[in-house]
Structures are given as C-alpha cells and as structure tokens.
C-alpha cells in the first residue's frame, strides 16, 4: 500500500495531543469542548486505520467509529446545554470562574 500505517497513527497522535492541549489550556468551556471533539476525531482515525490495515474484511472498526460519532454528538449536545444553563445563572462560562464547589 502506498501509505504506511504509521503515518496515519502519527497524524492521529498529533491531533490527539493538540486536542489535549486545548482541553488543558483553554479558559472557555466551549473551547474545551472543541478540544474534546478533536481528541475523539483522533481516536476515530486510529479505528479506521487499524480497520483498513489489519482487518478490512470485517466491519468492526467502522462500526466502532460510528458509535464514537454517536457518543460525540450526544456529548456535545449535553455539554453545550450544560454550558448554556450555567451561563444563564452565572453569566460566565469561563472555567476559572465556575468554582461553586470550592466553598
């Protein structure tokens, strides 16, 4: 095959690390969620790369990637609803300021 498997894995790893950085470093809750979406995408690249290069005759990798997609959508829907609801009561979605539980 023209493209070696490790290329895909390295791109996925880079995407995962960028998403990881976004989750750790951003202040805004929506931006953190975007970081999580990047990480989920990286995971999906890995699923599909392994499906293509290890067992293309069986759809397991694709099916799993579809479930990841569904979970990502559910996560985004609930996460963003939470953010909107927090914004409504606290007028901020800056993570540094959301520290109700700190007492």
């Amino acid at each position, binding site marked *: 095959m023209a493209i070696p498997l490790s290329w895909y894995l390295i791109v996925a790893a880079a995407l995962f690390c960028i998403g990881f950085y976004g989750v750790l470093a951003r202040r805004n809750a929506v931006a953190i969620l975007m970081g999580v979406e990047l990480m989920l995408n990286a995971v999906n690249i890995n699923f599909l790369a392994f499906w293509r290069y290890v067992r293309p005759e069986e759809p397991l990798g694709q099916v799993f990637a*579809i479930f990841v*997609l*569904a979970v990502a*959508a*559910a996560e*985004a829907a609930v996460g*963003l*609803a939470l953010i*909107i609801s927090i914004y409504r009561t606290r007028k901020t979605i800056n993570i540094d300021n959301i520290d109700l539980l700190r007492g």
Partner: protein
Amino acid sequence: MLQQYGLIGMLALIALAFPFVVVGFTWLIRPKRPDPIKNSTYECGLETIGETWVQFRAQYYLFALIFVVFDIEAMFLFPFAVAFKQLGLFAVIEALLFVAMLAMGLIYAWRKQALEWQ
C-alpha cells in the same frame, strides 16, 4: 474506489477556487470608491444600536439539538436500509425499536413544548 473520489477531489478544488478567481477578476475591473458612510453597516450611515452579536434565544439551540439526534439516527438507518434486503423480520423489528426510541424523544420534546417557536 479511489478513482471515483479523484473526480470529486478535482471538482472540489475547481469549485473552491473558481468563485474566488472570479471575485479576484472583478476586483481588477470594478470601480473602487470606498467612503466611510458607504462602508458602514446597512450601507447608509445609520448606526447599529448596541453590539451586533446579541444573545439569542435558546429556541434555536433546541431545534439544533433535536436535529442532531435525528441526524445520527439517519446515519444509523442508512446502512440498515442498504442491507435491508438480506435481513429477516426480527432484524427489522430491532431497527424499528431503534426508531421508536427516538420517536419517544420527539414526543417528549413535543410535550415539553420544545417544538413551539415562542
């Protein structure tokens, strides 16, 4: 299979470049006489009051939310529909259960008035 996508990729390149090439071409031949009033919002000097990016109502979000759930449902149903001919009656009932579950979500949204545009 990748050959088919070769045409799609080529079309994507051309279709993406073409509008900008034409806009760039008009930039060469069109008149350019900017003035502050013409370039203001509404093109007439009437000032906008307050910030443009005002806060929107949650109604838009609720519709987008219900859409997302049904979008995922469609994505699950398409492979099912393609495989439909090889499946037995029991498999079809399983898929209908899946649809019924989401129909329940729709009914819930209906009952909670999330579908009303207030």
